[in-house]
């Protein structure tokens, strides 16, 4: 199984990936800039995400919002920012490919002349609203921020949330923000993938015409940082919630590193779906939790594995903590069963196969090609990536889980109803979240 592609580089460093798929008369145009919140620094957070917004507000040669012409041509479009990278994409009817390339290249090469203080201020307000809607006005919404801040020390670039600290956003200075753009949003720091109803050579020529004139920017040095724990952090957070929830998380190996796939599989064994161990024990048998989840959050320079469980009314987070720790230890000690390994393999195959259905959007083929290219330099990694999962063994999974047994390496965060810090697990101190 793979995604066939052609890879070229323009003189200005832009890497171009092309994949033909003529099933639907549409083309996905997907661009990754290798910049995320990890390229920011304390006191100046939220820039990458703010740019994601600003990139839709007009460029020098089209100084109106970008949704108009693209939606008017029948496109779906969006973008996203995370700690490691920013992506923008459109899925357009075949005949609108040039429009998409014109606009993507214009906002890469000619954004700053159109970036006015009014737009900046306006989008900052939108981002503050986004923060309210997705974090502050949502039960358990601030848990992720508290968790990141605890897992990664203050000078580690994963310490702050991608959306940024409110205080930083309020004092962000337009000049600084413009300097950030010049540093990171240019052809030598970008990867462009086209997937769909194209002829690869013709499409490449178009890309060359639209993007070739944009000069490269300064080379971007990779960000490096380490995170490890020597002592458990036990934190609590009050929130507008009815039921307390416990989050346990550990720093784990980076995306694609040895152990990463194993931990993804371990998370499934532990808490993905009704047949998983923690669901069975906590929700089905003992009924001490209303829900439980586990995920390996894979990131470029360091990941974390997080397990979360909500206590059933009248049950305690201490009970949940004990049960989860026991199951993690049991998995490390005896490993997964053969059945669990087999299921993991089939589920991985299914997951990879389903994603081949779509050329664009988040997780579509164009997005995947860019992910492999930006993180590994190898757009053809698809089959190898699936192979990481198929090759996992009982032993390799046990080895990956073993470091999670020692509580010194983890963060325990209790989110409790207002005024109920007594419901947090013992020895917790209040977390501070802006």
């Amino acid at each position, binding site marked *: 199984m793979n995604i066939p592609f052609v890879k070229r580089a323009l003189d200005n460093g832009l890497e171009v990936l092309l994949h033909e798929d003529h099933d639907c008369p549409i083309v996905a145009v997907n661009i990754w800039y290798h910049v995320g919140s990890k390229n920011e620094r304390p006191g100046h957070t939220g820039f990458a995400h703010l740019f994601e917004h600003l990139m839709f507000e007009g460029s020098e040669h089209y100084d109106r919002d970008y949704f108009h012409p693209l939606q008017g041509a029948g496109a779906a479009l969006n973008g996203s920012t995370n700690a490691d990278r920013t992506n923008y994409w459109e899925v357009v009817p075949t005949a609108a490919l040039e429009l998409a390339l014109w606009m993507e290249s214009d906002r890469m090469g000619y954004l700053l002349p159109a970036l006015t203080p009014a737009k900046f201020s306006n989008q900052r307000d939108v981002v503050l609203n986004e923060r309210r809607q997705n974090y502050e006005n949502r039960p358990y919404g601030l848990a992720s921020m508290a968790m990141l801040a605890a897992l990664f020390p203050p000078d580690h670039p994963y310490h702050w949330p991608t959306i940024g600290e409110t205080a930083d956003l309020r004092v962000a200075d337009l000049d600084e923000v413009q300097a950030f753009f010049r540093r990171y949003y240019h052809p030598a720091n970008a990867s462009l993938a086209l997937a769909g109803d194209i002829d690869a050579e013709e499409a490449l020529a178009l890309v060359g015409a639209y993007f070739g004139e944009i000069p490269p920017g300064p080379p971007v040095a990779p960000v490096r940082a380490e995170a490890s724990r020597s002592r458990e952090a036990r934190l609590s957070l009050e929130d507008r919630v009815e039921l307390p929830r416990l989050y346990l998380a550990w720093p784990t190996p980076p995306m694609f590193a040895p152990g990463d796939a194993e931990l993804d599989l371990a998370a499934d064994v532990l808490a993905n779906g009704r047949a998983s161990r923690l669901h069975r024990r906590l929700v089905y048998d003992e009924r001490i939790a209303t829900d439980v989840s586990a995920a390996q959050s894979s990131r470029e320079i360091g990941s974390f594995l997080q397990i979360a469980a909500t206590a059933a009314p009248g049950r305690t987070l201490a009970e949940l903590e004990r049960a989860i720790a026991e199951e993690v230890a049991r998995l490390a000690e005896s490993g997964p069963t053969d059945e669990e390994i087999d299921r993991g393999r*089939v589920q991985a195959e299914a997951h990879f196969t389903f994603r081949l259905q779509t050329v664009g959007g988040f997780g579509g083929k164009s997005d995947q090609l860019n992910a492999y290219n930006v993180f590994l330099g190898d757009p053809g990694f698809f089959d190898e990536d699936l192979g990481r999962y198929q090759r996992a063994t009982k032993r390799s999974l046990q080895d990956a889980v073993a470091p999670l047994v020692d509580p010194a390496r983890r963060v325990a965060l209790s989110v409790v109803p207002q005024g109920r810090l007594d419901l947090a697990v013992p020895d917790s101190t209040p977390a501070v979240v802006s």
Partner: protein
Amino acid sequence: MSARVDRSRLPAPGAVKPFAFPAVDKSALPNGLRVWSVRHAAVPVVSLMVLVGRGAADDPPGRDGLAALTADMLDEGSRGRSAIEVHEALARIGGHLETDIGPDGTALTVSTLSRFLGRALDLLADMVARPSLTEGDFARVRQLRLHRLRQLRDVPGAVAERAFARLLYGDDPYGHTPVGSERTVERIESDDVRRFHAAMFEPSSAVLLAVGDCEHDAIVRLAGETFAGWTAAAPAPAPVAAPPAAPARLNVLARPGAPQSELRIGHIGVARNTPDYHALVAANMVLGGQFVSRLNLNLRQDKGYTYGARTRFDFRRRPGPFAVQVGVHTAATAHAVSECLREIREIRGPRPIARDELALAVAALTEGYARNFETAEQIARAATEIALYDLPDDYFAQFPPAVERITADEATSAAARHLHPDRLTTLVVGDVEAIRADLAGLDLGEPVVLSPEAF
């Protein structure tokens, strides 16, 4: 290729390429189960769905949430397999189960690699036609539902949806959200679930839909075997409409300290079979149906009140709601309400839909239409519309030309016919105390104070 590109204007997109919309092959089993399939074999996956035309509107009075609870019970074991064993069987085929419930229908979908089609179909038939529905499993599932409802007390959107449905519809079967309420779910018993299942999940009211790497004849044969024991029952009577509610113009539900107000503004709209369907879809796009809509550009881009605002006509078997849905910064609540009311008033005539506005909306709806038919699941979901509302087989192919025929005048007239400013009711879920004075300035009369326990 010339060295420099012309950046003095945007390149004009060429004509949209013809696209053959997927054909739906149709058969029926002796027990009345319709079997439809769409071959879409680019990738070796298949989505199998059983859709029944029964949903939350079929909840008996006082048993809000029964349809949803029944749907949730279907994967809790069947034919000697426990709930865990059902999910293990699903996991062994890399299968993914989704249960969707709305007012007019319920759908169970299993998606899997196509080589496991037979096993997936058997599992789906087990769930739909012969679930165990035991007392013990029911007690656990109901308890989990009650826990979930308790948690939803703190989700402003969920609170707003539930309260708004009650405001618009009162005791009508559309007057609640599928999940129900703590009060009603507490009173549901396992016998209710068994009766509901027997009455509502019967083959002559159902469609089996298979989309993906599959063949129609094989699906019919396999379905004939695995659904053989599913016996037809007389279709249950349709839900009975209630007299319309008469809500106050302004209603508030307090969430002290909330950073945002969740707003719903609307009234009862139209049914799916309205002759104005395409005109309303187009008009709604202009008003609040996409990013570049009047309402979103106003509240998000121009004023920075929100992360996103939208409007929607919910076209159901009987008239569903028209509503504005938006979360706004608390301090901006009254202004936001005032702007929403203004936009609704103006699109009816004072500021009619302009030709370029309509062109943008129509293009957004039609030029990229093929995008909606990439994956097996997308196609399956689209086909459910045909099944639920008895649409013609060529519905997909006819949609773009039907929308393209709408003129700006027709879209404006449709908006004028179906948007009624004097019937709008506004619901504010937020820090009401903090904005009390501002809300008074809206001149919508004394606000009715709702208590969350009432829903």
